[in-house]
């Protein structure tokens, strides 16, 4: 292992490896979430078995669905703004890809350890609003436009509690870098006992709650799925998309869910740190990705659990929930955190 880490690569080689890893990783994460949670866990929660035929226990069902999407005719409405229509899914997917850049999977396993990592992640994840608005506008369909506008209103409203919840963590750690946040949790102590480090969920439980609620809304998952509410706006901004363009939206949705789960795991659950393995040892690079994956699956379980349990909110309830409850809560959290950090 030390031998492997000692290999020096040219910049272009390093970049090529990183791009390849991302290109494989992002669709895989979407597949994992889709199969494990959307197909299997949702079925179990509804007392069904889920897909059974494709592959062992139906595990290849999503691949089969992906192939099906690729076979479909690529339809663009006559009145659509063709360039914007084609660009919209790509914008959404690019925002998803960029979010992965700063999430660390080990002491050295990070695509780019930006000093302002969490700020970067929040910034690029809100890019997807533009893609959604573009899709809604370019489809030349009133339901698509309504869905796009709903999405814009919702994503902007929930961007605020999301960022404010992260602020609490950043104040406590004193750094915007994702690696620093993990290190702070790995080396932290609970009243002098450093057995499991200091997962920030213990001190920032309020922020964790606000963050998860805001993530649910950011992903437009039920109970916050008004932008794509099929009973109200028949799929919203998806409505005119077929085939691989729809697949892009689907990939974007689930890969973003994975990315947000990764951010939540990093901010609140200690990221790649495993109790018992010193964070500066090489083994942290080996065990780190596995630990991070387990934590991500836990957070994703929460996200999808809420998704499959609650019915959709009304549009006004959605805005009320953000502006009247989540934002004041997160402001209180910031204030308390700030006072405590300054006082001690």
């Amino acid at each position, binding site marked *: 292992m030390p031998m492997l880490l000692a290999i020096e690569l040219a910049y272009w080689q390093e970049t090529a490896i990183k791009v390849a890893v991302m290109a494989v990783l992002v669709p895989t994460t979407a597949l994992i979430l889709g199969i494990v949670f959307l197909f299997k*866990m949702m*079925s*179990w*929660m*509804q*007392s*069904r*078995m889920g897909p*059974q035929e494709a592959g062992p226990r139906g595990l290849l069902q999503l691949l089969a669905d992906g192939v099906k999407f690729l076979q479909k005719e690529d339809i663009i409405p006559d009145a659509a703004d063709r360039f914007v229509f084609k660009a919209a899914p790509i914008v959404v997917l690019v925002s998803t890809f960029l979010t992965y850049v700063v999430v660390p999977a080990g002491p050295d396993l990070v695509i780019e350890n930006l000093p302002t990592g969490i700020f970067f992640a929040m910034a690029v994840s809100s890019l997807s609003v533009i893609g959604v608005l573009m899709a809604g506008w370019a489809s030349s369909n009133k339901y698509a436009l309504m869905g796009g506008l709903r999405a814009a209103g919702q994503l902007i409203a929930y961007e605020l509690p999301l960022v404010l919840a992260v602020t609490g963590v950043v104040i406590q750690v004193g750094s915007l870098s994702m690696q620093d946040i993990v290190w702070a949790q790995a080396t932290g102590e609970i009243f002098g006992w450093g057995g499991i480090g200091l997962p920030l969920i213990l001190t920032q439980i309020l922020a964790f709650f606000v963050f998860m609620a805001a993530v649910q809304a950011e992903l437009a998952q039920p109970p916050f799925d008004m932008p794509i509410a099929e009973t109200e706006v028949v799929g919203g901004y998806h409505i005119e998309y077929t085939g691989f363009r729809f697949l892009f939206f689907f990939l974007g949705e689930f890969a973003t869910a994975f990315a947000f789960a990764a951010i939540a795991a990093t901010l609140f659950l200690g990221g790649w740190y495993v109790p018992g393995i010193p964070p500066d040892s090489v083994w942290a690079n080996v065990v780190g990705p596995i630990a991070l994956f387990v934590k991500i699956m836990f957070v994703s379980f929460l996200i999808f*659990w*809420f998704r*499959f*349990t*609650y019915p959709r909110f009304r549009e006004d*309830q959605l805005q*009320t*929930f953000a502006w*009247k*409850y989540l934002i004041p809560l997160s402001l209180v959290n910031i204030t308390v955190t700030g006072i405590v950090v300054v006082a001690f």
Partner: protein
Amino acid sequence: MPKVPGMVKGLGVTFKTMVDTLKPSGGPVTVPYPHVKEEPTARARGVIALHEDNCTACMLCSRECPDWCIYIEAHKTLAPPRRAGGKPRQVNALDRFAIDYSLCMYCGICVEVCPFDALFWSPEYEFSEVRIADLLHEKERLGEWMQTVPEFEPYEAGSEAKPKKVPAYDPR
């Protein structure tokens, strides 16, 4: 703001359902249909079966059918007398009894009106055909389904007592 206790309860319900589905003693409520046949309830209304011996070709079912999907053909014939020395009886011999299941809407009126208990509900449900014309089933097929008709279940206690049309005089 939704009420918190109800929301937490809802999470519990979905989680419990998931655990119950995964437990060996539990399992899902659904069955993987083509591999495992679903067991319908005893009185499920799947298809209408014909007990040919009971049919007198009285045409009541055919006339009551809202869709006119029952075809009956019969001819008059003489049956041996019931008692020695009696006259031969005139009876209807059934030539054809067919139900067109592409028209039938499974209302069960024919089963209700049959005065001689010749029609029965069967829980059998696998009788789809590739061509719509093949859904016209003749009495042979209808007779086969008689074997799937469950035994008569006794009524629930008290359900047989018919209420009197005219209530008894109450001097109060």
